[in-house]
Structure formats: structure tokens, C-alpha cells
């Protein structure tokens, strides 16, 4: 199939009212979810997932991608207006966005955030289209040892960069891997940790684990310390962003977008470091660098470009290699699996129409983001006014219905609650949840590839180092572990020398 045929097949799949409605609705849900402090884009995607079961695969995945894109931008709205980032990725936006709001330029800051987000989103989507196919064709030559080394590398980097400690991240990943072994053994079909319960033979439901880990701990945390959100919204001011402002910031936006694309395509890095790197680069290169931190519009543009540049690029490892780049793409990977699709290089061979349909949908999502984002900026006051004491019980009810709907099984609701307590304990001990979830998803894949490699080699572990591709991933894994461990040691030594407890 030529590229034109593939594009036409993709267009045939998405060129209908239902797909565009799902995409638009997704962006709107995402913007609202991202804009509500305490809800976050991740929770918005997780809570939307059960609603996609009744949809066709492409419509459901477009809905989730819309929520993802909208959620990343939505986080910047409370960051600018009430100094409360809707997601960690928007933390850099606070630095200049909030001072602008205090100076009566909230409308201008939000407008620039939207323009920068849409530009970065478009660049990120184009990068995805350009690189995912190339990477997938390369990955077609991967065998079980190569996939094992790749997944191990992804888990290492996700465990290392998700929290403030490599060891806590590793512990989280180990728990996720152990939980993934529940069910029937992949080769012999014998029971593992099923405790005689037939509900556990198929393994624990991914969505129950996901919602349990990410939504329920927020509710428990609010019960632990119920404090009403005390931020006040402010007027947008009469000052709006102009094309002249956009032109002035264009270099920083493009630079930030490419930083986002580069960091987003590496599994585990995520949007927050990208936003901060883009911001610091913009400050370093800007002639107005002394104005950064006091309400510089270029600072808002750079940080928003940095965090939105990641949004398309995190799909590169997901679609091309079947490895999620962050928690949200892990949820989207779950949606693929619920609909009977396995992301990875073979998807570019077996479901090329869906791949190109998604590409087209992603490009259109940038346009929707611009339109819906413009409306959302004006409507934020109503969204921010939803009391958390009503919102979080509503989230609980949504979680119960959503998790039940996956398999029509009340057992899954119990699993969700149990995982909620695990997530709450992890939250209290500052153990990051992302490595847990990604290890839970990739665990069966890691074990399967390991055992296939062992079967191929007659249980000789040397096969795991059989060629340049495996060497490359092993080297990256080693470098990652050494770099993160060194950074951790240096940080703790520095804090001890400074006499300042970390």
C-alpha cells in the first residue's frame, strides 16, 4: 500500500461526523478537565476511557486523544489565573503567566498560551507523522531479545525520572511488575496468585488498576485533609494578544516545540521538564531576559510550547514500538488493547488505515484546540467555581460506573478501591505511581519477550546481548542508571554540605 493509498484509507475512516464530534468533544472535556485544579489531564483521560467502549476503535481513540490535547492546554488556564497549575506540566507557565494576570494582562497571557500551544501541537503532530512510520519500519526487525532490552530501558528511565528518587521509582516499577504476574501463566497456563478466585484468572483489569491508582487516591487525600480550594478567579483584562506579539515570540515557540518533540519521544521524560527547559532556553536567548519572571509574554509562550510539544511526540514510541511514553499514553495504549489493537510496528502493517486516520485526526485536533481553547478562556470562571466537595464525590461515582462497565463485573470495583489505597500509601510515601502503571502494562510484554528469547536460545541468556540493537539499549539502560544515581548522590551530598536538609 502506497502512502497516498494509506492516507486515503485513513481519511475514509475519519471523514465522518461521528469522528470529528468525538475529537471536538474530547478537546472540550480535556480543556475543562485540565482547567479544574486537582482533576488533571491524566484523570480526565482515565475517566473518559470507559465511555469509549461503545464506540468504534478510531472514534474512541480520537476522543481520548482530544482529551489529552485539551488537557495539556487546559492546565495553563488556572496556572495563569489563580497560580495553581492544572497539571505539573503547567508549572513553568505560572512563572510569567501569573505576574501578567496580576498586571491586568490575563487575557493576553492566556491568548499567547493558546497560540503557542496550538503551534507546538501542530509541530509535534507533524513530527509524529514524520518519525513514527520510519521508527516502526526499523522496529519490524526487532525480535524478542531486542524488545526485552527496549522495554527494560523504558522501565528504567521511567522509574528514574518519575520521582525524586531512582530507588522509589524502581520499587514502584517492581510492584507493578509483580501485580502484572497475577493470572494464568503465559506459557504453561498454570495459576499465579489467583487464590482460587476465577475473577483473577485473566489478570487484574487494567482500567480498575489505572483508575484506582490515579483517581481514588485524590478522593482519599481530600478526605484526609478536606480544604476548600481558595483561589479567586480574576478578570481577563482588556489587553489581548496580537499577531505582533506572536511574531515576537515565534522563535521561542518553535524552539520550545522542538525541545518538546525531542524530550517527548524519549519514554518517561514527560512535559514538565520540557516546559522548564524551553523556558530557560528562551530566557537565555531573549533580549528581555531581565523581564522573565516578572510577567514576560515570551516566557509564557516558551513554557506552553515546551509542554505542548510533547503531546504528539509521546505517541511516537507508543505507535512505533508499542511502548508508552508517559501515563496518558499508557492509558491510550489500554484503549487500543480494549478495542483489540496492539500498538507497535505490526500496527503499521495490519492497521495502517487506523494509523493514518489517527494522524489526520491529530492534525484536525490542533484546529479544534484553537477554537475550543478560545471559548474556554472566557468560560473558565464557571469551571473554577465547581466546588471540590461536590466534584470529588462525583468523580467517585464516575469511577464506579466506568470500572464496572469494562467487564460488567463488580469484582473490578473492589480491585479499584484496593488500588486506591495502594495509590494513597504511595502518595504519602512520595513513591511515584507512573512507573507502577507502566510496569503493570509492560510487565506481560517484558516477561513474554524474555521467555521467548530463552526458548529461542535454549535458555542461554547470551541471546539478550545478541547484536547492535540490544547493545544499544543495554548501553542506554546502563548510562541512565549511572546518570540518575550520580545525580541523586550529588544532590544529597550538596544538601549535606550546604547544611540545608533537602
Amino acid at each position, binding site marked *: 500500500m502506497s502512502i497516498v493509498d494509506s492516507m486515503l484509507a485513513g481519511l475514509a475512516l475519519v471523514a465522518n461526523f461521528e469522528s470529528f464530534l468525538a475529537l471536538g468533544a474530547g478537546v472540550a472535556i480535556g480543556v475543562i478537565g485540565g482547567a479544574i485544579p486537582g482533576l488533571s489531564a491524566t484523570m480526565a483521560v482515565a475517566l473518559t476511557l470507559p465511555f469509549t467502549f461503545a464506540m468504534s476503535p478510531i472514534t474512541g481513540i480520537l476522543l481520548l486523544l482530544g482529551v489529552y490535547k485539551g488537557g495539556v492546554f487546559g492546565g495553563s488556564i488556572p496556572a495563569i489565573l489563580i497560580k495553581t497549575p492544572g497539571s505539573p506540566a503547567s508549572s513553568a507557565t505560572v512563572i510569567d503567566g501569573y505576574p501578567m494576570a496580576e498586571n491586568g494582562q490575563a487575557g493576553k497571557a492566556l491568548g499567547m498560551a493558546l497560540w503557542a500551544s496550538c503551534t507546538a501541537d501542530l509541530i509535534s503532530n507533524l513530527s509524529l507523522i514524520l518519525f513514527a512510520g520510519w521508527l516502526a519500519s526499523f522496529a519490524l526487525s526487532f525480535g524478542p531479545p531486542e524488545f526485552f532490552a527496549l522495554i527494560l530501558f523504558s522501565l528504567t528511565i521511567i522509574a528514574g525520572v518519575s520521582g525524586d528518587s531512582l530507588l522509589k521509582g524502581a520499587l514502584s516499577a517492581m510492584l507493578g511488575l509483580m501485580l502484572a504476574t497475577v493470572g494464568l501463566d503465559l506459557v504453561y497456563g498454570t495459576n*499465579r496468585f489467583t487464590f482460587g478466585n476465577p475473577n483473577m484468572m485473566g489478570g487484574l483489569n487494567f482500567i480498575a488498576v489505572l483508575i484506582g491508582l490515579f483517581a481514588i487516591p485524590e478522593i482519599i487525600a481530600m478526605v484526609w485533609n478536606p480544604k476548600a480550594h481558595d483561589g479567586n478567579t480574576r478578570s481577563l483584562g482588556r489587553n489581548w494578544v496580537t499577531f505582533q506579539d506572536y511574531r515576537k515570540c515565534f522563535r521561542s515557540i518553535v524552539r520550545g516545540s522542538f525541545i518538546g518533540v525531542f524530550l517527548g519521544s524519549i519514554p518517561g521524560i514527560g512535559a514538565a521538564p520540557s516546559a522548564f527547559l524551553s523556558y530557560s532556553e528562551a530566557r537565555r536567548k531573549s533580549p528581555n531576559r531581565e523581564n522573565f519572571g516578572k510577567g514576560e509574554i515570551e516566557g509564557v509562550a516558551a513554557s506552553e510550547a515546551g509542554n505542548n510539544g510533547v503531546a504528539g511526540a509521546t505517541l511516537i514510541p507508543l505507535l512505533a514500538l508499542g511502548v508508552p511514553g508517559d501515563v496518558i499514553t499508557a492509558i491510550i495504549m489500554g484503549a487500543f488493547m480494549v478495542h483489540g489493537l496492539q500498538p507497535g510496528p505490526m500496527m503499521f502493517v495490519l492497521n495502517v488505515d487506523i494509523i493514518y486516520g489517527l494522524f489526520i485526526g491529530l492534525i484536525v485536533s490542533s484546529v479544534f484546540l484553537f477554537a475550543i481553547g478560545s471559548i474556554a478562556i472566557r468560560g473558565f470562571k464557571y469551571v473554577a467555581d465547581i466546588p471540590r466537595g*461536590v466534584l470529588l*464525590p462525583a468523580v467517585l461515582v464516575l469511577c464506579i460506573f466506568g470500572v*464496572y462497565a469494562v467487564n460488567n463485573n463488580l469484582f473490578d470495583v473492589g480491585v479499584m478501591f484496593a488500588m486506591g489505597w495502594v495509590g494513597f500509601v504511595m502518595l504519602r510515601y512520595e513513591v511515584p505511581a507512573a512507573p507502577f502503571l507502566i510496569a503493570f502494562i509492560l510487565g506481560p510484554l517484558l516477561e513474554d519477550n524474555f521467555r521467548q528469547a530463552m526458548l529461542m536460545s535454549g535458555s542461554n541468556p547470551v541471546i539478550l546481548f545478541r547484536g547492535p540493537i540490544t547493545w544499544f539499549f543495554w548501553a542506554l539502560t546502563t548510562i541512565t542508571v549511572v546518570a540518575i544515581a550520580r545525580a541523586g548522590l550529588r544532590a544529597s551530598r550538596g544538601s549535606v554540605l550546604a547544611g540545608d536538609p533537602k
Partner: protein
Amino acid sequence: MNDRAGKIQLGIGAIVAAVLFVAVVIPNFVSAPSNVPNVILSPRFWPNAIALFTGLTGIGLLLTALRHPEDERETPVDVDHRGMALLRLSGVAMVMLATVYAMPRLGLVWTTMVAFIAVAFLVRTHHPVSAVISAVAIPLLLYAFFAHVAGVAIPQGEIVRLP
């Protein structure tokens, strides 16, 4: 609790869990056929390997905490009355337990209505009227969507059945 104490607790927890898994849980709850040609291919190999690495991670956490006794960073106190907070936590645990047990008997809609009100009470909502209205409206709307649009068989219970 400070960061160091947290790491020590996590480290000890991980080591204890690893030992329990290797000595008790895996031998008793992972079945392996007797004719497996190589230990690496056994269904027990992977859980044992994970348990081993969990134990090593626990040792690492413990060593890190013990090597830096100066690192006594206090976790910010986030609740004024710890006793009340623990009481509320037990309350939400009871709500969850009761939800799981009540769902087959009362049905999903009625159970979630009660759970909504209970959680709103536990988080000390400042908007009780909105909470009660939402507690009735949201489960009904979700029921309408899942039962009539998505075609999911929502448990109705034995008391009041919805159309």
C-alpha cells in the same frame, strides 16, 4: 515522619515483602508443572526474580537512609487534627467496603447515590444542597448513558428497579 524515616519504612517493607513472597506466597500460590525443562522457563522464575529485585531495592533504600542521617527533611504537616483525619479515613474505607457489598443488593444507582452523599459529608462540603442534588442526578445520568446508550447491563438490585 521525615524523608529518612519514610525511606527506612519503605526499605524494611520491601525486604519483608520480598522474603514473604520468596518463602511463602510464591511456593504456595504459583503453580508450576513438574516437567519444566529449565528453571528459567518455570512460571515461578519471573515472580521470584521480581521479588529478588524488590528486596534489593529495599536494601538500597535502607542503605541510602542510613548513610545520610543528616537528611531529616520533615514532611509538611498537612492536617490539624490527626485523630479526626484517621477517623475520616476509616469512614471512607467503610464507605468503599459497604459500596462493594451493597451493589449487588441495592443496585449500582442507589448505592452510588448513598456513597456520593457519604463522601461529600466526609470531605465536609460547603455546598450540601448542590451535593444532594448531584448525588441524585449524576448516578441517574450515568445509568441512562451506560444502560441505554452503551448497552451495559447495570445491576439494578432487589428493591427499586429503573426503566
